[in-house]
């Protein structure tokens, strides 16, 4: 992405890239083949397990351990099983729970985080680096250290079984992530536009709302996606702080029970996993450039 254009633009001193190509031509085919081999290995490494999940999700339960590498015995039964509540699973409700928790967490984190990120990226104020340090420290904070006090507190005030018991702890990692990623986005936006708006008579608040916010919209959207994914994927806190009514999909899938004890309902779990993953994969494919930019700018956790 960047380096091709960088080479192109820097190659204003024209002949350098050409000279390289000319001199390296005999090696070219070998290095190209090696490059394609590398690409193929990476793509297979990343996609093969995911492919296996999708293939199994569509495979008849009687052929769970069929090792044919392409789809065989295709059926939609596993998806029906995944959504069925007769075995004590609440996958449908869990999907809804995850969406509610994710959206609330994201809105709160972006609402608070965009102001902080703006201040850190644009303003000089005392304690700025302290704030940045606190945010960074918070983003590396182990979730398990929050679990004990929150579990005791939420049990005492009867919050287990409420969405707030899941949204509040999610803020602890979604907010630092938001501030961090947005700071990187804001820092890259042009100062001059904001100053021009002020010269033209906007108050700093108006300059932020009318000039910067529309420019920042892509960054805000990407950050919101990252925050949503982080909340959607959370498991540790949710597994302890939720009950049957509020459990998110990660917990529901992890605790999925089959029709017989001691027999894992592999195909139904793979179907459930496919449903949970497909929206994320589509989002990632559509927004890959932005997400990579956001991830590497913020250096967030995986």
């Amino acid at each position, binding site marked *: *992405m*960047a*380096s*091709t254009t960088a080479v192109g633009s820097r190659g204003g001193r024209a002949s350098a890239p050409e000279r*390289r190509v000319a001199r390296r031509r005999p090696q070219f085919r070998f290095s190209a083949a090696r490059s394609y081999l*590398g*690409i193929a290995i990476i*793509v297979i*490494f*990343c*996609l093969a397990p*995911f492919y296996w999940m999708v293939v199994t999700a569509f495979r008849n339960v009687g052929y769970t351990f069929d*090792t044919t590498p392409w789809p065989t015995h295709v059926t939609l039964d596993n998806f029906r099983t995944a959504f069925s509540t007769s075995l004590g699973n609440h996958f449908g409700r869990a999907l809804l729970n995850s969406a509610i928790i994710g959206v609330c967490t994201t809105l*709160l984190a972006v*609402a*608070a985080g965009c*102001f*902080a990120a703006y*201040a850190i990226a644009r*303003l000089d*104020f*005392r*304690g700025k680096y302290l*704030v940045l340090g*606190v*945010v*960074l*420290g918070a983003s*590396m904070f*182990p979730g*398990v*250290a*929050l679990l*004990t*006090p929150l579990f005791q507190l939420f049990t005492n005030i009867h919050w287990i079984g409420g969405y707030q018991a899941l949204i509040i702890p999610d803020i*602890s990692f979604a*907010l630092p992530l938001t501030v961090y990623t947005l700071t990187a986005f804001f820092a*890259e936006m042009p100062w001059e536009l904001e100053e021009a708006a*002020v010269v033209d008579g906007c108050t700093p608040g108006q300059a932020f709302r009318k000039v910067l916010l529309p420019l920042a919209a892509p960054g805000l959207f990407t950050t919101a996606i990252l925050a949503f*994914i982080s909340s959607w*994927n959370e*498991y540790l806190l949710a597994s*302890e702080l939720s009950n049957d009514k509020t459990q998110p999909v*990660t917990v529901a899938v*992890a605790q999925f029970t089959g029709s017989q004890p001691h027999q894992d309902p592999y195909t139904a*779990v793979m179907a459930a*996993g496919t449903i*949970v993953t497909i929206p*994320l*994969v589509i*989002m990632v*494919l559509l927004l*890959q*450039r932005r997400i*990579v930019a956001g991830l*590497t*700018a913020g*250096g*967030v956790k*995986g």
Partner: protein
Amino acid sequence: MSVTSGVSANDKAEQQAQAPAPERKRGSSLHRGEGRRGIFLVAPTIILLAVVIGYPVVKAIVMSFQKDPGLDKATGMFVSGGSAGFSNYTHWLLQRCGTASCPPGTLGSEFWDSVTTTFFFTAATVVIEVILGMWMALVMNRAFRGRGVLRASVLVPWAIPTAITAKLWYFIFAYDGIANHILHTHILWTGGAWASRFAIIIADVWKTTPFIALLILAGLQVIPAETYEAARVDGANSWQRFTKVTLPLVRPALMVAILFRTLDALRIYDLPAILTGGGGGTGHATTTLSILVVDQIRSGFNSAAALSTLTFLLIFLVAFIFVKFLGAHVVQTQQRQQKGTI
């Protein structure tokens, strides 16, 4: 901070800020009252973080010095709490249960084992992921065609929730599953002690290596092509170009990636908890510190609070060592990366 002192401090800060950066003066109307506005704007974030992180941390520390309700080992009487001094900490660190040492099989006796397990997972996954990730980043950096496909496929393992990843590998590593089929083996991947550890490492490497590769790639992309050109003109072969040009220049980005990844690996929970049911092998071959905390919550909050505080301190210590001695300058690296000066 009182309002007046805040204002005067801001004025000073503004004078200092303006001295080395005279070009800022153009926007002086914008920068007036910047200090107060800055603090006002970061306040919601700081307050939220204080509520969701600060309060639980302080509460955990307070809890960790209190006794769990239960039978007092020394007197045989029921105690409903009270100050415990450091006994919750000595319970874990010295494996003391009351006045005797903890019998095998109790959670208290597992502390050092789970510290070892956690560090083993961290070392193994970080080393493998950084080496593999470096190779992936080099391939991606060289690839001019197929970049879109690469980027898209690399993001797939990252996007899948870890809980789903664990279930997916649980299926792959099933006794009749595809892993044993491909390897022509009959390994009880989620049963044996070392087999289950390897299963977790493999699943974690699959899930996280692409993310490391993206972080390293971002560092690689800001290395100017001329640097390689110059090295090549000077007669450096590709290995020399890698060790003498790429590695030193990518080092800041690499250190940050390793720091983030290490701290993330130290709190590993989802994979061992789901893939091997928190046990593996004889019952605690894959019990990490996070799993031990969750187990302990069931049998006593205050002791669990001491354990989670220990976990937190351990991670803090590792982060400190990284920043202090290994030169992982997170903030500077981020800023230089944004300016494209690395």
